[in-house]
């Protein structure tokens, strides 16, 4: 027997976990201790390279890690215990899977000899999380742990990013084995994501773009995930081609909202000009988006006259909902680089003046207009003021889910990628507050604002305590209308205005709540108060709960109604007055 006592790679499983985090450049993790992860917490206690952020609920750890990942381009890491710790992670893992966020979750598990025995805080973690992770592992032998941890980081970050989970039984954490630093052979040989696009298809694409009369570029979160280079190349492509560009919710910021070719967001609550351009175009270049049902509207009437090119790193995203003519599998930056090179060498900027004139007519409909009001704060106005007052600052925006999220997407202009964190695919109420915590951990000196709704924010409001403990000056800007606004809007438009359980009777006093948590509470009830209160919120270097009392029954428009196509949008002037009048008759007073 050789003497292994002086081998620095001999260590416990728990030490390996921390060592692997360090080897992958992890500086912050989000977690909550419990019986089955105590050995790992003991290791965390005895080092200073990885900072642990203690949350109040494991879901908060998951969303914080998502916000961290989305705002940095690095993987977000969460550490939770077995049983309820792991099941509480299911929502963030699913959220990250839907939105392609790289998340590494390490969960404790009961000792291997107890697995299957219904032990205390046991659950089938890998079974439960199998459909909501890109991949997951249960490690039964400490000598497999290093390899699995390294592979987990690789799988989370490569190809189409996504969440992974490594389940580590407590006896494996205690056992001693051999660690090795990351190496290539740690990865399944069967996993080979394709990065480079097919050259002949790229050439074909250039020919189609060059001869387009009514083109549009439609981008999504794939541009953001690909990294800053993809956004740079996208901007260059728009410049070189002169094409109009729209984006999904997830892709906002890849092309600047102040850019001349920007049409605004598309889809169910997108702008009229973006949706009409999509509907009437002859060539559609889709990059890193997935023709989601919120985007397409009625699929058999989706952009009927166009040739479609789809660039995506995930082959399963192509031809899933909409049949495309040119499928290009590859990484957005990689393919865009090749595409630009060919375009610049072989093509000229096509003349699409007539198309831009048509688009100008659609723009003139001013689909984001709303009635001004001097007595009540309109939510759209509140976001516009927030945008104006934070313009030029180093700002990150997160949101919850609902009307406020759509208004934020419509009225807050994003100039850069990685500045906008929202739950797009899964639509997770309660995402924004913990996500803001994650963003603030990564960007200590930046202004991080969660644009929230009064209903969503209560789903994870306990994380205010996390923000206070870790001195994270997040700003929770609550558009408080006392309703689950989007639910109410659907009930009003589709269910005969029967507002079944979408009204919150017993709303907490958010200012007092802020006081209870030891943070700052602010309130604005009149349009005249708004600017001053927002300025105060920005200047305070502490966490803030901002109770912005807005019109209770405002609806989010424009909107593509159910079963309709892009060219059948409901614009605000066609929709609000009469319908909202019936809502008033129901007796719900304006705040």
């Amino acid at each position: 027997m050789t003497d292994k006592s002086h081998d620095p790679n001999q260590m416990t499983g728990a030490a390996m976990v921390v060592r692997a985090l360090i080897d992958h450049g992890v500086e912050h993790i989000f977690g909550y201790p419990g019986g089955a992860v105590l050995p790992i917490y003991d290791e965390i206690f005895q080092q200073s390279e990885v900072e642990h952020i203690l949350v109040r609920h494991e879901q908060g750890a998951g969303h914080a890690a998502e916000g961290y990942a989305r705002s940095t381009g690095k993987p977000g890491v969460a550490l939770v215990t077995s049983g309820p710790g792991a099941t509480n992670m299911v929502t963030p893992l699913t959220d990250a899977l839907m939105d392609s966020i790289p998340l590494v979750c390490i969960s404790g598990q009961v000792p291997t000899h107890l697995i299957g025995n219904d032990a205390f805080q046991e659950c089938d973690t890998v079974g439960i999380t199998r459909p909501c992770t890109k991949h997951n592992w249960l490690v039964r032998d400490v000598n497999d742990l290093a390899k699995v941890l390294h592979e987990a980081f690789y799988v989370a970050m490569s190809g189409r990013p996504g969440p992974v989970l490594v389940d580590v039984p407590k006896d494996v954490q205690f056992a001693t084995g051999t660690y090795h630093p990351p190496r290539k052979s740690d990865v399944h040989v069967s996993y080979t994501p394709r990065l480079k696009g097919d050259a002949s298809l790229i050439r074909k694409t250039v020919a189609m773009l060059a001869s387009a009369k009514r083109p549009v570029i439609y981008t999504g979160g794939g541009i953001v995930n690909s990294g800053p280079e993809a956004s740079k190349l996208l901007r260059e492509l728009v410049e070189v081609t002169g094409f109009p560009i729209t984006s999904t919710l997830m892709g906002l910021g890849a092309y600047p909202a102040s850019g001349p070719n920007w049409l605004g967001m598309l889809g169910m609550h997108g702008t009229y000009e973006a949706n009409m351009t999509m509907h009437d175009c002859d060539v559609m270049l889709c990059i890193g988006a997935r023709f989601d049902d919120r985007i397409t509207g009625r699929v058999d009437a989706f952009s009927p006259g166009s040739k479609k090119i789809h660039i995506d790193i995930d082959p399963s995203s192509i031809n899933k909902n909409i049949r495309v003519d040119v499928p290009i599998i590859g990484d957005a930056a990689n393919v865009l680089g090749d595409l630009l090179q060919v375009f610049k060498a072989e093509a000229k900027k096509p003349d699409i003046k007539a198309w831009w004139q048509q688009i100008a007519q659609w723009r003139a409909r001013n689909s984001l207009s709303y009635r001004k009001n001097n007595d009540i704060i309109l939510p759209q106005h509140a976001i516009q003021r927030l945008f104006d007052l934070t313009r030029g600052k180093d700002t990150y925006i997160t949101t919850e889910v609902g009307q406020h999220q759509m208004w934020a997407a419509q009225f807050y202009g994003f100039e850069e990628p990685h500045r906008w964190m929202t739950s797009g695919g899964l639509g997770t109420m309660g995402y924004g507050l913990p996500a803001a915590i994650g963003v603030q951990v990564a960007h200590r000196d930046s202004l991080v604002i969660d644009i929230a709704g009064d209903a969503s924010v209560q789903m994870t409001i306990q994380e205010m305590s996390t923000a206070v403990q870790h001195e994270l000056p997040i700003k929770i800007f609550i558009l408080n209308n006392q309703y689950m606004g989007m639910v109410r809007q659907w009930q009003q438009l589709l269910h005969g205005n029967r507002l079944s359980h979408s009204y919150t009777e017993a709303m907490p006093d958010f200012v007092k709540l802020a006081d209870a948590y030891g943070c700052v509470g602010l309130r604005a009830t009149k349009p005249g108060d708004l600017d001053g209160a927002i300025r105060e919120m920005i200047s305070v270097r502490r966490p803030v709960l901002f109770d912005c009392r807005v019109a209770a029954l405002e609806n989010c428009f424009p909107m593509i109604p159910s079963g309709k196509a892009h060219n059948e949008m409901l614009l605000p002037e066609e929709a609000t007055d009469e319908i909202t009048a019936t809502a008033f008759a129901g007796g719900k007073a304006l705040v």
Partner: protein
Amino acid sequence: MNQPASAYFLEERHDPNETHTLSVLVQNEPGVLARVIGLFSGRGYNIDSLTVSETESQKHLSRITIVTTGTPMVIQQIKHQLDRMIPVYRVVDMTLTGNSIERELAMVKVRGAGDHRVEALRLADAFRARVIDATTESFVFEITGNSSKINQFIDLMRPLGLVEVSRTGVAAITRGPEGM
């Protein structure tokens, strides 16, 4: 549109369904079959038949043969969804290769006496089914072939005293010298 009030677009697509046989080469590791099955149940795909066994023990490779039904777009989705799983090496659509051989094995228990018993034996002989167990009042036949041949044999056994059937599901391989 006469659809009920919904936040979703409720449209059925009416492309005709096709049946395809897929061969999937996977790393034989814990949970791999659960991943594949979970994909089918989670996304609402059909499994008509599923066969799995380790085929190269040195390399820990297993081969899964799946017979599935769906529209051409769904079949393509299934292949892409399988292919992007981490432990999946290759997915081959045996139906598209056009030159695959498909076989299934079934064991068929028949109980009866007199003329029925004689008729069962005679039909088994015609189908090249072997007798692998016999008592004075029963037979177990082993039959190999494609699924339709086995279906036909089982249909013929039904009036002759069919008791039960155990089938392996379809295994498939391409003709010619090339492997998958």
